[in-house]
């Protein structure tokens, strides 16, 4: 059963964080064009508020939805709307997007007047999160205003800041904790106020002692505890962080508020602070550009909608031309076939891997039941069984092995000596089960 300080399963990975962890956050030059997808979040896509030919200013809201589960999108730079059309995004889908030709002379809309974060009400915080289009920036992209509005009968007592950054290579959260610690602590206080939480834990993997030290020095509120957690993938999975810090398991199919917890990522907390204090919309984010095949690894402050190609060029390009480019982390991110895809609110990294490190699943063989996936699955599933059932197209039978509980951390595929695409097969089972229920 769940005990504090640990969760069952999980593995240690080669982290390769030293490539970028000492690179301070820097800004980059403006791209010629930005692509703002109308859906960068879980929930209803936005409707465009502008037309082709319109001039837009940086910070202007250009897409919105009236649905509750949604988040508006903003122009991250000034310019002219060149097109509103489907464009490929980093997840491999084609998404209706507003394409803006960036103007040489930048002009921002004037943000709201500065306000003291001590005086805002709970409603004002939620409203600011919604207006600013803030979504979970750790990768899940769930609208923050929705997370801050739990059902009335599910009181939240604890805010957990997911500062694990358990994916290899990525260092953006680490850098933000070192460089934007005050903003993070201010964001934490806003999150606690919004949901009425009594305490907060900032969970940081113990491979980032400098971040732990920095935040301990900055946390001026006894309700906020900096919690060192074991470096073990997938520590940064929402459910597993809850188990490690609170010693509770989130019931199958339920959300964290079921155990009285709200989990938010570092970048999201900082974005919330900026939205509440300055009325600043979600216009930019820190992206780690790294991997053994990038010339100059860096942590860059990037405008939302900037094409990956532009960022790669800013980092000196690739060392070898044959490469794999992943947007997100190496365990859960997506490999790109086209670098003209935009950075969105949930894109935490661009990782260029050299060819020799790329191992496909093309030549996978049958499962010999070594049990490595069973032993290491953090959800305690039976991954190899689901994998073989999917191979036999027996999706009904897979339901007995809980594919819907899979958090898609990718450990099963990582450890499989037969190189089977186990997590991909589990995702397929999820899709088939969902399709059947419709």
């Amino acid at each position: 059963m769940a005990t504090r300080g640990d969760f069952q399963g999980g593995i240690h990975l080669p982290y390769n964080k030293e490539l970028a962890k000492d690179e301070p956050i820097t800004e980059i030059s403006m791209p010629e064009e930005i692509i703002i997808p109308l859906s960068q979040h879980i929930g209803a896509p936005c409707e465009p508020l502008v037309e082709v030919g319109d001039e837009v200013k940086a910070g202007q809201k250009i897409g919105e939805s009236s649905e509750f589960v949604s988040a508006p999108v903003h122009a991250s730079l000034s310019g002219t709307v060149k097109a509103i059309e489907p464009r490929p995004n980093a997840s491999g889908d084609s998404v209706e997007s507003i394409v803006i030709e960036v103007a040489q002379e930048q002009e921002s809309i004037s943000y709201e007047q500065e306000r003291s974060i001590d005086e805002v009400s709970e409603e004002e915080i939620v409203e600011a999160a919604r207006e600013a289009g803030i979504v979970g920036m750790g990768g899940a992209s769930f609208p923050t205003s929705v997370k801050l509005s739990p059902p009335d009968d599910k009181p939240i007592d604890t805010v957990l800041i997911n500062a694990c950054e358990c994916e290899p290579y990525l260092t953006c959260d680490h850098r933000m904790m070192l460089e934007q610690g005050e903003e993070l602590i201010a964001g934490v206080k806003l999150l606690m106020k919004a949901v009425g939480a009594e305490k907060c834990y900032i969970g940081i993997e113990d491979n980032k002692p400098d971040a732990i030290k920095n935040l301990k020095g900055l946390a001026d509120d006894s309700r906020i505890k900096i919690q060192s957690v074991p470096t073990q993938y997938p520590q940064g999975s929402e459910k597993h962080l809850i188990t490690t810090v609170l010693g509770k398991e989130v019931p199958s199919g339920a959300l964290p508020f079921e155990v009285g917890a709200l989990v938010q990522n570092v970048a999201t907390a900082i974005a919330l602070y900026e939205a509440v204090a300055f009325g600043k919309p979600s216009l930019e984010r820190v992206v780690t550009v790294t991997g053994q095949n990038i010339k100059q690894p860096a942590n860059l402050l990037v405008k939302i909608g900037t094409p990956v190609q532009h960022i790669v060029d800013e980092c000196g390009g690739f060392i070898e031309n044959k490469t794999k480019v992943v947007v997100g982390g190496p365990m859960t991110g997506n490999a790109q076939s086209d670098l003209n895809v935009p950075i969105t609110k949930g894109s935490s990294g661009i990782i260029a891997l050299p060819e020799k490190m790329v191992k496909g699943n093309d030549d996978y063989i049958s499962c010999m039941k070594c049990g490595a996936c069973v032993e290491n699955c953090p959800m305690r599933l039976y991954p190899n069984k689901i994998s073989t059932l999917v191979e036999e197209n027996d999706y009904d039978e897979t339901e007995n092995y809980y594919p819907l509980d899979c958090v898609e951390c990718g450990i099963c595929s990582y450890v499989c000596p037969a190189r089977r695409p186990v997590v991909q097969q589990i995702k397929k089972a999820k899709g088939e089960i969902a399709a059947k229920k419709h």
Partner: protein
Amino acid sequence: MDNTLDLTVSSAPHVKSEETTSNIMYQVILALVPVMFASFYFFGPGAIYLLLTCGITAMLSEVAVQKLRGKPVTINDGSALLTGLILALTLPPDLPLWMAVFGSVVAIVLGKHIFGGLGYNVFNPALMGRAFLTLSYVVSMTEWTAPNGGVDTLSTATPLEGEAEVINLFIGRVGGSLGETSALAILLGGLYLLYKGYIDWRIPVGYLGTVAVLTTLVGEQGASFHLFAGGLMFGAIFMATDMVTSPVTKKGRWIFAIGCGFITVIIRVFGNYPEGVLFSILLMNMCVPLIDQYTLPQIYGEVKANG
């Protein structure tokens, strides 16, 4: 630069461990080296002939079956060679080579490919070959050459039918099957496999522990004799631990191992066969799907129905 860019696209995760199935197979073969060396030391060149015969026949059988089935030939994964070598190590040193050929063909064709090939077989393939030989050639399969027999290849009783010093059993200076006699060599290989994580300690510990406890209670010859005599040590370390035919859950591995120990003692102490390792593992192999099914851990955050 764009026009020469060559982007590889595949699904996550984009990093993988270095471990491969064939590496595991060759590592187990490496762990067998002390046992193979001991078999040569105690039984002479005949041991090498048997090992070569079984290894080569097993690989040729695999190629033949895969060609016939129109499947890709996976001879390089090392699994057929491993099956052949393990089978050879369970055979009496003076077994006619043609019988060893038969045993190897049965192991690969009936033990492995009839179920669909690597990973699909229910029974340990080497033990299927061995079971076929035991039942078909009763006399040849129970003629035990004295170690370092040299000139007079006397048929002596297997230690399980007679008396032997425990120290001789441990080192392997007794009659018996090629690879079963030297507990020392087997343990060396076993420790390597444990160190590399290719076998779960629960299986040998559960198996040997059960035999030790039960034979202390009911055996006439005592636990130390039973542990080191016959094929128990080899079976507990190299055969019951076969990944394909043992459970994937930790709890399941305990049940499997204890079951093997229980059946072994029943056959050894109360049965007509002197040795029970072979059938105990095969019988427990049969139970593995059921054991796995009933020992799956409760999933994270499982909600009990009607709870």
